């Protein structure tokens, strides 16, 4: 049994690697620039979620419209079947694409776009500012079409001056508007972090509730692919440390839409941590999520997968990894309960505790560094609460490696939690 499982794991891993080799160098461009869509014609297509997530070329414009997405998905499925590979299918888990044309499918980037579009329409005080958000349609095309629809007044291109435009955004919020301040990546927010913390987060408290700051700071956070150390840092722990901020980290398209709408409607500063590698990932959207009033409450986690043996707590991109790992482990009879945090601050410790009291084991998974991180906080909170007495083993943190992000692919891949790491950690925690 063990041999078969390890064979499966090796095969699975090898499969991913072989695909990586295949698609390296393939450039994907959106049709409309005078070229045929290479996505459709390319034989080397991503086939499973993990593979999809590692594509550096996703930063170049992928297909935007739903019909195009479905075509691409169909093509990739065809290729998958043709290849005769028999990898573990995690596709079913997330209702990837299969049938059901009645329920809509949406990429995370489109969900974010829709959320902003709906909120811009709903409240004229809402506006978006940041680098390239207007005429370029967004560095990652998240704000595509918004400038055309709403114009210069509400979608504002800024110069490359984070500290300045962040301060301007905060001031506008103080004076009654509801800005969405985009950071091209959260790495650049470090230049403006004083405005986020000292001007935005603390002001309501310092003014004894007199001065509110209804602002959303959003943008991609954490590691991308091949962008090296200065562009790969995860800021979840940094921002979640500070009272006065709400820190949100969506995973799926539904998360993205519902949480962004809640963030924009919130009268307080919200740090909204997206993930670049998730932008192009499609998810099924439930019917209720297609409503213009669909919001997801900030501060509530979601159990993505029920389980009995171990509680796996994670956020953002790593929800996918954990679900993949859970699928592999299920074949061995280990049922993982996967919790998608959705919000980092305030942390939904009740959901985590209820789960730990059921499973008696806890593993946290994140992309950020281990020290003083999200996982560290979860462990501390669980220790201080009623769930501690239910633990049969110390909690385990699976994190990024404690180094600045290297560039070379093999090094980068091994700087972040891989599915095999998660599987191994869960097994070790369960002592199997």
């Amino acid at each position: 049994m063990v041999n078969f499982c390890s064979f499966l794991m090796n095969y699975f891993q090898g499969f991913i690697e072989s695909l990586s080799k295949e698609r390296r160098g393939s450039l994907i461009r959106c049709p409309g620039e005078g070229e045929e869509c290479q996505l459709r014609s390319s034989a080397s297509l991503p086939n499973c979620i993990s593979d999809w997530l590692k594509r550096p070329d996703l930063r170049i414009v992928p297909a935007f419209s739903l019909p195009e997405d479905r075509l691409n998905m169909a093509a990739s499925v065809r290729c998958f079947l043709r290849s005769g590979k028999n990898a573990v299918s995690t596709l079913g888990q997330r209702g990837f694409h299969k049938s059901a044309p009645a329920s809509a499918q949406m990429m995370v980037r489109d969900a974010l776009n829709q959320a902003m579009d709906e909120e811009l329409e709903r409240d004229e005080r809402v506006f978006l500012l940041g680098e390239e958000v207007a005429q370029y349609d967004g560095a990652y095309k998240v704000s595509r079409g918004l400038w055309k629809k709403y114009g210069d007044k509400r979608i504002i291109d800024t110069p490359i001056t984070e500290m300045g435009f962040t301060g301007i955004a905060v001031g506008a919020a103080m004076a009654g508007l509801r800005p969405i301040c985009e950071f091209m990546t959260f790495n650049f927010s470090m230049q403006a972090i004083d405005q986020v913390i000292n001007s935005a987060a603390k002001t309501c408290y310092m003014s004894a509730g007199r001065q509110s700051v209804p602002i959303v700071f959003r943008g991609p956070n954490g590691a991308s692919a091949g962008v090296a150390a200065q562009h790969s840092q995860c800021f979840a722990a940094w921002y979640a440390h500070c009272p006065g901020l709400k820190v949100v980290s969506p995973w799926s398209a539904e998360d993205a839409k519902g949480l962004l709408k809640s963030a924009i409607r919130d009268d307080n500063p919200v740090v909204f941590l997206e993930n670049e590698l998730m932008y192009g990932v499609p998810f099924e959207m439930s019917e209720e999520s297609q409503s213009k009033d669909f919001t997801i409450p900030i501060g509530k986690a979601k159990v993505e997968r029920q389980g009995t043996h171990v509680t796996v707590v994670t956020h953002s991109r790593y929800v996918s990894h954990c679900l993949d790992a859970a699928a592999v482990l299920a074949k061995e009879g280990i049922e993982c309960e996967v919790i998608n945090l959705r919000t980092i601050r305030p942390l939904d410790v009740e959901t985590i505790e209820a789960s730990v009291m059921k499973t008696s084991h806890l593993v946290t998974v994140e992309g950020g560094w281990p020290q003083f991180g999200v996982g560290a906080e979860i462990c501390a909170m669980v220790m201080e609460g009623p769930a501690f007495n239910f633990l049969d083993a110390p909690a385990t943190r699976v994190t990024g490696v404690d180094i600045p992000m290297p560039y070379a692919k093999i090094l980068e891949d091994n700087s972040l939690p891989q599915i095999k790491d998660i599987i191994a950690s869960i097994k070790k925690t369960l002592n199997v």
Partner: protein
Amino acid sequence: MLTNFSNVLRVCAQRNGAAAVVSARTYADFTTQATFEIKKCDIHKLDEAPATQVVMTRDEGLKYYRVMQTIRRMELKADQLYKQKIIRGFCHLYDGQEACAVGIEAGINLTDHLITAYRAHGYTYTRGGTVKEIMAELTGRRGGIAKGKGGSMHMYTKNFYGGNGIVGAQVPLGAGVALACQYQGNNELSVSLYGDGAANQGQIFETYNMAALWKLPAIFICENNRYGMGTSVERSAASTDYYKRGDYIPGLRVDGMDVLCVREATKFAADHCRSGKGPMLMELQTYRYHGHSMSDPGVSYRTREEIQEVRGKSDPISLLKDRMLSNNMASVEELKEIDVSVRKEIEDAAQFATTDPEPPLEELCNHIFYNDADLEVRGTNPWTTLKSVS
């Protein structure tokens, strides 16, 4: 003739031992308004400067006098309370610079917006805060303007965004407020103040760029009191022409010790902004009598002679007083009455500030968020859970 008559009366009153001024001097005695010659402003990228012949009415003069005197006495009281350890932490006093706060407010409306750095007590007052709630905030009591949660550097009132502790950070905030004014089309403007020390901050230049690019209705005002903490302007800036530092933004250099100069320049700048021409920059040349803060004696980097000289020759309150007296716009007694009344107001406020109780412990975790559900906040240990109400 009337004057002589009333002088006689006054003398009689005094001889009779009457304490009250039996004033037969009516309003008809005083000049209702006069024209004053003020210093010409240096201009940068402008075709014309603010007027040098300005009119001030008696009422305006009395109002400016009263407000400046209130600020002066309030700051001196704060000095006293600080030395008695009733005020703690940071305390940056504004005495000497009163003409700036009063002159600016005279040039704008209460519906306009203003933001400054940490030397903010004077502005909190001119923007509508009361002496009582300002002093109670300094002493950290529940009657403070921020309920004791903010302290000296974090006082807020309507259209006044503090009180900001981080040097320079208030300038982009002020431009953001201007953006909101422009966005909402309400013909209001935003005044952002900063000092000579902050004037070298990068974020200020980033703000100049965006304000000019987007033609925001923003007035940037540098209160140049010659010293950024203990460092003189010569030692910190490659160019001390702060009014030119906005480069493409038109600028004015103004005598910040003359309330009328400041008022005229502010009106000039406000007109410029409201006409949609974009931002303007003003440098007010002023002086602070105290050190940077209460922990700085203020004499290690400048001489006592310098301080005395400014006090003697350029004190803003004295300047205004001399103007009014020599133009027969007020009497010595009248101004003394104002002084007495101001003193009393300050004493009452100080009394309140020292006797009002501190905020209740139940307030500790309140106001983290605005318009939010009640939440639980971890105390210093896992068994302490505190409540936060927004």
